[in-house]
């Protein structure tokens, strides 16, 4: 009996030792990152409440964002279309996916997403976590599937470490991919443009920029309002129509005739870097956009009332156009785009 007790004790001791040796306790330490909300910005999207960015969640998301293995043939990452130098958009007319496939629309910039209520040109998604899957599976974008992605990266030792640091264990799960990429995107905040410094730090506009700002307030601000320079509404401003039967603007989602070819008013921050313009890149330059508004836009039953009241146009003098463009360029954030 004594022998057995002794042996058992010995075994327990040994076992305990062994366990300690192989599994040094993993200390889960993944602090939340507090998002710096720039002065005057709208409130955060509610989804963030359930997916607060963390140190390693964001690191993981950034790595995934730049990983071409998210596409079927390992050629396209999120960053292939969402390039930092273009405020996480690109300069193509319409998005280019794997094998040169052309998408339906112009790539929207990924900036200040934490403050947006709607995503995509048609506002199809209300939370970034739900958007991540869409480009992964879309034929014209990455043409893959989430399990294909999981399979490709699940044995990658760098990912294992990051998933563990971000989520407590190294399992590569679809929800974790969605959440970490969204977390990374929440941290892409652009609020250090000349405009911001003029407002907050006493920098001075040039004469043209100052005139442009005044003209902007009269001619543009009804839609491009707030510190995001969009009121996040959906409007038909009479731009040339995308001939694809896949396109209906906001009505693609809502089904309402009144929303036909209405699009989300885009932010003008970093617009200097995101040419061409319009939902499918109808305009090569900012001047083209202003010329079009000045000349006359396409009529429609649901054309925005502001345009209707002004004879389907926004009259602008040559000087005003120059000045407004000078002002829009003060919304460029060189730190954000890394230029």
């Amino acid at each position: 009996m004594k022998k057995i007790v002794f042996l058992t004790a010995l075994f327990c001791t040994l076992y305990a030792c062994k366990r300690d040796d192989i599994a040094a306790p993993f200390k889960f330490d993944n602090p939340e990152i507090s998002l710096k909300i720039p002065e005057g910005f709208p409130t955060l999207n509610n989804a963030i409440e359930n997916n607060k960015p963390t140190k390693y969640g964001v690191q993981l998301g950034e790595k995934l964002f730049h990983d071409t293995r998210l596409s079927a043939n390992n050629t396209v990452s999120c960053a292939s279309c969402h390039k930092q130098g273009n405020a996480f958009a690109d300069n193509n007319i319409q998005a280019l996916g794997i094998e040169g496939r052309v998408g339906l629309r112009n790539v929207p910039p990924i900036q200040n997403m934490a403050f947006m209520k709607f995503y995509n040109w048609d506002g199809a998604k209300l939370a970034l976590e739900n958007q991540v899957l869409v480009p992964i599976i879309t034929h014209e974008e990455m043409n893959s599937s989430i399990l294909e992605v999981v399979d490709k990266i699940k044995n990658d030792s760098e990912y294992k470490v990051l998933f563990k640091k971000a989520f407590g264990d190294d399992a590569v799960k679809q929800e974790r991919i969605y959440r970490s990429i969204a977390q990374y995107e929440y941290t892409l905040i652009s609020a250090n443009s000349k405009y911001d410094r003029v407002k907050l730090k006493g920098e001075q506009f040039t004469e043209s920029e100052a005139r442009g700002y005044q003209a902007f307030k009269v001619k543009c601000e009804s839609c491009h309002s707030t510190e995001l320079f969009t009121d996040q509404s959906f409007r038909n401003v009479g731009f040339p129509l995308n001939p694809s039967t896949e396109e209906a603007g906001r009505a693609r989602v809502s089904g309402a005739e009144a929303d036909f070819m209405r699009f989300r008013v885009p932010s003008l921050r970093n617009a200097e870097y995101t040419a061409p313009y319009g939902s499918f890149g109808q305009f090569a330059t900012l001047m083209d956009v202003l010329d079009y508004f000045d000349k006359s836009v396409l009529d429609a039953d649901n054309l925005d009332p502001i345009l209707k009241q002004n004879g389907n146009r926004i009259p602008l003098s040559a000087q005003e156009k120059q000045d407004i463009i000078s002002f829009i360029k003060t919304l460029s954030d060189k730190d954000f785009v890394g230029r």
Partner: protein
Amino acid sequence: MNTLKKYSFLILALSVFVSCKKDKDPVANNINLHFNNTFKDKTIVLGDAASSTATVNASANGQVHHFSELKYVISNIRVIKADGTAIPYNINNLDEGATVINQAKAQSLDYVLGNIPVGEYKQIKFGLGVKADLNTLNEAKFPKFYAAAGANDTKMMWEWGAGYRFTKIEGFYDTDNKTLSIHTGSTVEGTNGDEATYTQGVDAYRDITLSLPKLAVVGKNAPKITIKADFDKLLSGKTNTIALGGDNAVPSVHTAVNMVKYVDNLGGNGTSDLSGMFSIASVKN
């Protein structure tokens, strides 16, 4: 050797006994569903623009049309006993309880409901499309259905809506064979399945209720229920009469615009019409 013989005999006896018992008194059996896709009473034959064999239909407005592709998703199947008890068939599992009916694939027109408790059934309910709480393209959860719907010859996904296509109809209309292309699917956003939280979008899922002309008896035999899906209703439905290319309908529906008219015709409007294009053609016990 002797022992072995004994055991063999016992096992043999036991199997006989078990099989006897099964024969006499099954606790469950199959219900075989067959889908017959028609224009009125004619089973649809698909064909390309110039096809001479395709089944041609004329709408209430006199517009001729025929299809080259015809697919739809059936899910959330429930069979209702004579006493009113509902037997749900894997309603929360798309892999085991949902299917893509594809007119181009004969075997897809038959769907077997396995392990249905014996008894008499008076009604069948099912969904045209996928109910909102399951309509998320969750590949990890339902890999079989995801793969079937996403296959290159099926293409039943609405990627941008992160959901499944519920119906996909390709074809031609008018005597000059203009292209017709009608896709339906949901665009609702919110907490899936909780309508109170829906903030935007259209739910294209339709719940169908069909009463059986005679009781389907699940017992020693597996009954066969033939469901007719009359695509004449697409343009000439109980809810809407549609003239393609006219004021009230573009012939290419790939978004939520105009879609609901077709959805209501195919799957009913959810209130006064709970059958849409579907009816029971026959029940064979």
